[in-house]
């Protein structure tokens, strides 16, 4: 392909860019590579049409890291939150820093290391039950419940509410990204609200927002009830800790701040580890050699940490949105105040300028400054929990079942956006 053709192709790819569909995943890295090589700061009309103003997609590691570490020019106040923005994700420094100072101590390496025996024990329990079944779904039987139940215990959500919590999460995060359960629940809710689905069974962006607001109100009411219960009867959980927390050591959090923080913890804690685990195990089912290589090193404490980091680099899931706060010349591109910028960490993590041979998993890769957990002030709060969960889940599962393959009769169901695997039926090899 000539340079001119490569540029023209990139312009067309940018125009149609929409990483929220499962179809996008079929040519995801090819698209990011074509954009990165010919048009690394690309204007996307498709994203703009979805109601976010002028929209840009960045694909170079250096550009994405620069935006993630410059919150003054690239703000997290991106609108589109049902009911109210989530804390601290949708807040910029300096208020963001004050909220993170409350949350950080509860998620440190030391705090999360103490959980390890419990993580091991619960993972083993789920895996034993799963592999005893004649047929199993790695996501429904393990990747979903493992991090979700651990997180519910940590925050203080009653485990009896598991099914309801998953439904709320799926309606909020997976209304229109190819997630079958999310789409079905949203459709049901839309009809209940008297809204009319479009030709393909979805809803207009406005109606979609009405549904998310309706679900959001329900979730907020649930939080309010739990907060009241802990005010009366404190427990050893994050809800109780939040009630005692002080903003900058001066005042307690308001009811709205408490609820908005719980909302963020809820959305960030329930989905991410499940998605990464699903993508890794699907990959391993298709690539037995890489799987055996991992199984051979996974008991080596000197190597397993780096190997998990490499798997997270390879299977990063988050595309971070940012809003440009002033007219800004950015590496030759003229960004305007109010523009929307998409920062796909999967694209950054495959940039050959930062990661030689980026499309290969190299378990001992060094350096490995991947963005799988984000970067800058908004880096993943739960990083030390997530890392331990991914490592322990992979170890425990592969100890019990080192050989497996996809079920040809029931292929995995993927979803786009904050991508992941909704169902992953596996067979013993």
């Amino acid at each position: 392909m000539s340079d001119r053709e490569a540029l023209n192709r990139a312009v067309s790819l940018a125009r149609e860019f929409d990483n929220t569909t499962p179809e996008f995943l079929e040519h995801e890295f090819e698209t990011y590579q074509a954009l990165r090589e010919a048009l690394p700061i690309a204007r996307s009309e498709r994203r703009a049409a979805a109601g976010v103003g002028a929209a840009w997609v960045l694909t170079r590691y250096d550009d994405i890291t620069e935006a993630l570490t410059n919150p003054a020019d690239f703000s997290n106040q991106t609108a589109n939150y049902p009911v109210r923005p989530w804390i601290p994700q949708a807040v910029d420094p300096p208020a963001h820093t004050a909220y993170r100072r409350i949350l950080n101590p509860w998620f440190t390496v030391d705090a999360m290391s103490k959980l390890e025996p419990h993580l091991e024990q619960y993972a083993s329990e789920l895996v034993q039950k799963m592999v005893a079944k004649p047929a199993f779904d790695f996501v429904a039987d393990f990747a979903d419940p493992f991090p979700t139940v651990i997180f519910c215990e940590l925050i203080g959500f009653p485990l009896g509410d598991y099914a309801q919590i998953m439904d709320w999460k799926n309606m909020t995060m997976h209304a229109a990204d190819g997630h079958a359960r999310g789409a079905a629940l949203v459709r049901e809710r839309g009809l209940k609200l008297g809204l009319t689905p479009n030709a393909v069974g979805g809803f207009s962006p406005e109606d979609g927002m009405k549904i998310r607001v309706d679900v959001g109100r329900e979730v907020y009411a649930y939080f309010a009830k739990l907060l009241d219960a802990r005010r009366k009867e404190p427990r050893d959980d994050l809800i109780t800790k939040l009630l005692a927390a002080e903003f900058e050591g001066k005042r307690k959090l308001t009811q709205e701040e408490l609820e908005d923080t719980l909302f963020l913890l809820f959305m960030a804690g329930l989905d991410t580890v499940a998605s990464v685990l699903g993508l890794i195990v699907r990959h391993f089912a298709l690539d037995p050699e890489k799987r055996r290589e991992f199984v051979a090193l996974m008991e080596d404490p000197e190597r397993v940490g780096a190997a998990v980091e490499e798997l997270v680099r390879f299977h990063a899931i988050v595309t971070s949105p940012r809003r440009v706060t002033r007219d800004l010349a950015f590496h030759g591109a003229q960004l305007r105040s109010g523009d929307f910028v998409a920062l796909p960490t999967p694209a950054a993590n495959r940039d050959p300028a930062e990661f030689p041979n980026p499309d290969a998993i190299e378990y001992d890769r060094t350096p490995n400054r991947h963005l799988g957990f984000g970067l800058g002030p908004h880096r993943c709060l739960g990083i030390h929990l997530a890392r331990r969960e991914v490592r322990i889940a992979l170890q425990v599962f592969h100890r019990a079942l080192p050989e497996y393959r996809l079920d040809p009769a029931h292929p995995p169901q993927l979803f786009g956006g904050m991508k992941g695997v909704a169902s992953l039926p596996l067979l013993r090899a």
Partner: protein
Amino acid sequence: MRVAIDTAKCQGHGQCVMTCPEVFSADDQGFAVALQPEVPASLVEKVERAALRCPERAVRIERA
């Protein structure tokens, strides 16, 4: 070799603490602290690896 944490850059990813706990620790907020600014010869290689794994490039190495 001397090592220091650039506190303006460190966001508490914990890569240095995981890679070389002999030299790096985390404070109560999870941000990195260099326990031994003067790195003994036996740990030079591990400290270099820790620096190469820090996504924020916050581990500063100074060679005499």
